């Protein structure tokens, strides 16, 4: 679904990531760890085409990123749900509209999807907060809203960048639960986190592979966890 081949990424002369090869296959569950600033967010951005690698190839759903037009990238993003680290909402619109944003921008009729939206908000436990503005939500509620927005298009891949970054353990587990459920429905999941407890909690429920970014390289971590 998403393939990286000998990918390198440099910012202003310094290389942040190098020689990274990875294939995300359907239904897989990956964790991505590494110290802060190691390039986890950059790695995820490469995976959804927000960055073009300085070397190597990225293929989204079989197409080379470099050969994709801006519209092609937009279309690919409708098949990839992204939970951003800094959630990224439209602050002047209520939660329900923000969650439905991917539907709106892809020309779906909101009215036909009302039931879907209600169900989804229920699932992430935000049905009572549907009319609140993003600024009025707590950290955990924002993360769950971000997850709801990432999955509303029923994407094939879900990339989550520190989804439990600023929420408590109980909420983290609930969020993980949602992601595990999605994985059981056949979605490909990739979670960037440095929360080892979260990874351990997941390992008891799904077969998750753990990747670590260390010294600009991507390595399989795993057994020692």
């Amino acid at each position, binding site marked *: 679904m998403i393939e990286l081949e000998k990918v390198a990424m440099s910012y202003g002369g310094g290389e942040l990531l190098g020689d990274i090869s990875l294939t995300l296959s359907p239904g897989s569950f990956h964790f991505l760890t590494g110290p802060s600033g190691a390039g986890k967010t950059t790695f995820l951005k490469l995976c959804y085409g927000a960055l073009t690698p300085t070397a190597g190839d990225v293929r989204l759903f079989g197409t080379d990123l470099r050969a994709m037009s801006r519209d092609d990238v*937009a279309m690919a993003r409708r098949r990839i749900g992204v939970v*951003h680290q800094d959630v990224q909402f439209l602050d002047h619109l209520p939660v329900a509209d923000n969650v439905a944003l991917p539907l*709106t921008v892809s020309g779906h009729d909101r009215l036909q999807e009302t039931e879907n939206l209600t169900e989804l908000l229920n699932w992430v436990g935000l049905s009572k907060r549907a009319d609140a503005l993003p600024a009025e939500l707590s950290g955990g509620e924002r993360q769950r809203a971000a997850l709801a927005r990432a999955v509303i298009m029923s994407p094939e891949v879900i990339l989550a960048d520190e989804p439990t970054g600023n929420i408590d353990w109980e909420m983290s587990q609930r969020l993980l639960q949602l992601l595990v459920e999605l994985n059981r429905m056949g979605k490909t999941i990739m979670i960037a986190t440095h929360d080892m407890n979260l990874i351990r909690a997941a390992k008891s429920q799904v077969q998750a592979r753990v990747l670590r970014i260390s010294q600009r390289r991507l390595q399989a971590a795993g057994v020692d966890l």
Partner: protein
Amino acid sequence: MKPDFNRIAAYLVGDQQADRMVPPTGFTARLTLFAAGAMAFLTVFALALSLATGRLADRWSDELARASTLRISAPMDQRAAQTEAALRLLQTTPGVASARALDEAEQRALLEPWFGPDLPLETLPIPQLIEVIESPEGFDAAGLRLRLAAEVPGAVLDDHTRWRRPLVSAADRLRLLGWVSIALIGATTAAMITMAAQAALAANAQVIAVLRLVGARDVYIAGAFVRRFTLRSLIGSAIGTVLGMIAVLLLPSAQAEAGFLTGLGFQGWHWIWPLVIPPLGGAVAFAATRHAAHRTLRELT
């Protein structure tokens, strides 16, 4: 290509959901409205100027070209005879549709603006004027002058070209200036809308980034801005045009004495022309915003 009015209408009515994506901005909206309105107002006047001078140039080159004047400056006792002879001669000249000696009252009316109403015309050696109207083919002025010199020694033919030409070229130049003004106003409108759009795009960089991240295509994102600015500019231009037309309507109309200068306003079907301004203003805003939006978007991933 036939414009698809349904699509244009649907575009202007717009997708309310798409419009909500970009937070409303009262202040720039009012500025855009004002700028478009002011520019439309000015365009109405430039248009009125162009059309009026165009009319003037046409009239001068047309009417005056069709008419010539024959002046009989003979001693009083021979004047009537020479006038007779000249009229006879003109009747047999090919290309002359009609020739008519002006009567005393008409000659007095011509002199009145310069000498006042109570001019004792009879006592002055005023030359007799003959108005010659050409047929569409026109006559051979040089040939006519030769014949006149032989038969009516006191006659001088004035075919007006001498003073008509500079006036017509002045009017033409003025008309050109009017059109150049309209072009400049259009370009200024485009520049102002572009700046306003760019300010709006910069202020909403975050919104644009979010839309792009959730899979919005450039057309969709640009559309939300383009529609907004097109509508504002359309409304502003419409208001400005109406005010401009009212102002032109209230201009003092040309009096009979000044008929030579023609009124500055619009005449007849020319009133249609200013109605073109609002759609044109909308089109300019559409193109300007679209260009600005796509340029901004290209810089995003």
